[in-house]
């Protein structure tokens, strides 16, 4: 049987088990949309901007482990995906993005809406290819799904010229993949693992550092077993937060730029650092010369290139996190960590995590209310102070999940990604937490949330500022708040050093804006209003609710280590270093 490329495209999606396509049409994708219209098993979600679209597909993929599918037109449709592709690539999220393209014969002519999207995205995706022969279409789609989800997952781009979409050809979809240059290795080298165990076994002050690889590698249960069996304390990266329940007695906290005092101390003082699924980026290590100076470092990662790149590792192990930990469990015995744990506890008591009290409602209080009111949720934060506070105070475990853009730190990611999560999990409580800056980067997706009837609870932490950057200006740039005040108007004094009674009102009025989208909008200005607002949102399960929290403009994320400084040089809440 023969049929168009578009027909094979739809058949391929069905065979891959795709249920949702995040799509935005245009002249060079309309054939594909037409074919999708003629069937019922795959639904099309139409976000209001391609950037929102790909972040939604990303949230869908992160929360399900399935491949997120994007379908956009050529030219501007394709270039609007770029930030989302880089975001997914950085956090190892499996996506397959189909971009329309001008007919093969027009490529190179600077035709209307022609861009070389494969060239543009070459170093921000796992793989990208233009289909140049209708006969290759089935194989290419099959390979794309395989590449996206195997090994270290990532985004794959398939550029589909218009004539390939319409050309008749066979409709066979291959069962198997064989790519000679791509054979991802997941199995663990037992010799290396034995070596690691020999080193770990003799540790007096062992420490586990868990990164995003635990979540991506579905190693949650095995890690928990390892910890319970060994009594080794754990710190996490921001991406690894939630890899073990945040209330587990052996969990210390996040490490890195905004890590807790006890966590960063523990990294500095441990004698063996057993790290799993982290690339040791600069936000984790600070000054490389002073990172874990007393420790032998063991590093398990699925990506060879992540090992011994930033930090020199003593025992490298290339493996899938879950497989490696499971193997290790055969040997592990309980450690004598009592003394070490007491030391860590003393550090924590010396400088516990927590925001200044007495100023009324602050982010810690708001997030604690979420912890209290909900028994399960997926919280998706945006980027900035709101993200760090959420990461610091949100309770996490298997039922209390947290997603965000860790590697690229993409403002505007949180809200659309939350929509993708809610589409995949209609019954889940999906809570989006954004700053007043970031929410405006994809605010148009309020329409998507309404038309898709998604009861996402959208929390906007309004501090009137691009708070994370303002914090840097506060500490390191003499309070010169250049381009971080979102209330600022051209009539304001040029040398403003902070808010006062003469400040102009905030624009937009988020509540009116929400209402214009038929979204329930609630403004919360005091602690007593927090719980009723969430209760109202819980009653509103057919539509989104936007809750704007008016928080103190000058709130800070602490502790903090200045970029490039050693992790031992923390700015602490009391002001002491």
């Amino acid at each position, binding site marked *: 049987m023969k049929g168009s490329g578009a027909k094979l495209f739809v058949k391929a999606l069905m065979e891959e088990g795709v249920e949702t396509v995040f799509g935005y049409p245009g002249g060079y994708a309309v054939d594909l949309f037409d074919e999708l219209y003629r069937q019922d098993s795959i639904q099309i979600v139409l976000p209001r901007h391609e950037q929102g679209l790909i972040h939604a597909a990303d949230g869908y993929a992160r929360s399900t482990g399935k491949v997120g599918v994007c379908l956009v037109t050529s030219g501007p449709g394709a270039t609007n995906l770029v930030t989302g592709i880089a975001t997914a690539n950085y956090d190892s999220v499996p996506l397959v993005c189909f971009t329309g393209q001008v007919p093969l014969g027009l490529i190179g002519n600077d035709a209307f809406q022609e861009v070389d999207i494969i*060239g543009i995205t*070459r170093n921000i995706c796992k*793989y990208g290819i233009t289909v140049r022969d209708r006969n290759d279409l089935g194989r290419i789609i099959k390979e794309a799904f395989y590449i996206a989800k195997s090994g270290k997952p990532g985004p794959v781009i398939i550029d589909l010229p218009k004539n390939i979409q319409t050309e008749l050809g066979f409709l066979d979809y291959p069962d198997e993949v064989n*790519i000679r*240059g791509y054979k991802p290795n997941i199995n663990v080298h037992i010799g290396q693992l034995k070596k690691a165990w020999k080193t770990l076994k003799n540790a007096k002050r062992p420490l586990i550092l868990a990164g995003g690889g635990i979540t991506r590698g579905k190693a949650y249960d095995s890690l928990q077993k390892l910890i319970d069996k060994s009594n080794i304390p754990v710190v996490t990266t921001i991406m690894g937060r939630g890899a073990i329940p945040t209330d587990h007695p052996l969990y210390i906290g996040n490490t890195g730029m905004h890590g807790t005092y006890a966590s960063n101390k523990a990294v500095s003082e441990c004698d063996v650092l057993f790290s799993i699924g982290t690339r040791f980026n600069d936000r984790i290590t600070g000054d490389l010369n002073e990172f874990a100076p007393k420790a032998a470092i063991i590093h398990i990662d699925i990506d060879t*290139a992540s090992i011994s790149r930033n930090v020199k590792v003593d025992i490298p192990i290339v493996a899938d996190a879950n497989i490696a930990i499971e193997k290790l469990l055969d040997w592990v015995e309980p450690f004598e960590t009592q003394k070490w744990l007491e030391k860590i506890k003393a550090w924590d008591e010396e400088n516990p995590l927590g925001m200044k009290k007495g100023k009324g409602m602050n982010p810690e209080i708001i997030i604690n209310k979420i912890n209290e009111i909900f028994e399960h949720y997926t919280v998706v934060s945006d980027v900035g102070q709101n993200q760090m506070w959420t990461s610091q105070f949100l309770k996490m475990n298997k039922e209390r999940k947290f997603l965000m853009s860790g590697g690229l730190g993409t403002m505007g990611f949180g809200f659309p990604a939350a929509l993708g999560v809610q589409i995949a999990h209609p019954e889940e409580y999906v809570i989006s937490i954004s700053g007043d800056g970031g929410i405006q980067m994809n605010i148009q997706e309020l329409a998507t949330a309404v038309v898709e009837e998604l009861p996402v609870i959208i929390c906007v932490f309004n501090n009137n500022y691009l708070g994370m950057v303002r914090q840097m200006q506060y500490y390191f740039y003499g309070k010169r708040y250049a381009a971080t005040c979102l209330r600022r108007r051209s009539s304001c004094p040029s040398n403003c050093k902070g808010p006062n009674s003469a400040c102009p009102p905030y624009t937009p009025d988020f509540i009116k804006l929400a209402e214009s989208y038929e979204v329930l909008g609630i403004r919360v200005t005091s602690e007593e209003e927090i719980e009723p607002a969430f209760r109202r949102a819980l009653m509103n399960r057919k539509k989104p609710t936007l809750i704007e929290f008016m928080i103190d403009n000058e709130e800070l994320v602490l502790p903090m280590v200045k970029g490039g400084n050693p992790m031992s040089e923390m700015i602490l809440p009391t002001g002491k270093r």
Partner: protein
Amino acid sequence: MEKRWIALYVENEVGVLAKIAGLFSGKSYNLESLTVGTTEDKTISRMTIGVKSDDITFEQIKKQLNRFVEVIKVIDLTDVPMHRKEILFVKVKNCTTHDKTELFQIANVFNVHVSDYGKDSVLLECMLPDRRNDELIQLLNLHFKTIEVVRGGSVAIESISTSCI
């Protein structure tokens, strides 16, 4: 920082060269030379890549290359006996008769070919290891006023008798 060599088998497809070259620019690796051509199998190309780097960066480069779906095999030629040659054309212009005689002598000593000749210019065609080409260019620069240099980049293949490195 040392000069090192890699041989790379890649899919002979559109965009692969750009992807490999892009890795070097994007990650600020020091690319010294890159050549590419098809192999006995038309669907596979082999690249010869010369880089200047320290040990850690060189390990990273190999790992990053290995990550590419289109890369079939990465061969580190650093400690491998190999034959390595680079094509070099040098046109020496504005020569006197004396210059020309000297050029023939130089060609003799360096074991290169005079492949074209005119009233006042001489074309040398060289196939030498890149370092030897460097030396020849240096020498010609010293003795002649106007020279035009076209270099092809190195190609390398592993040795059969392991003796020659």
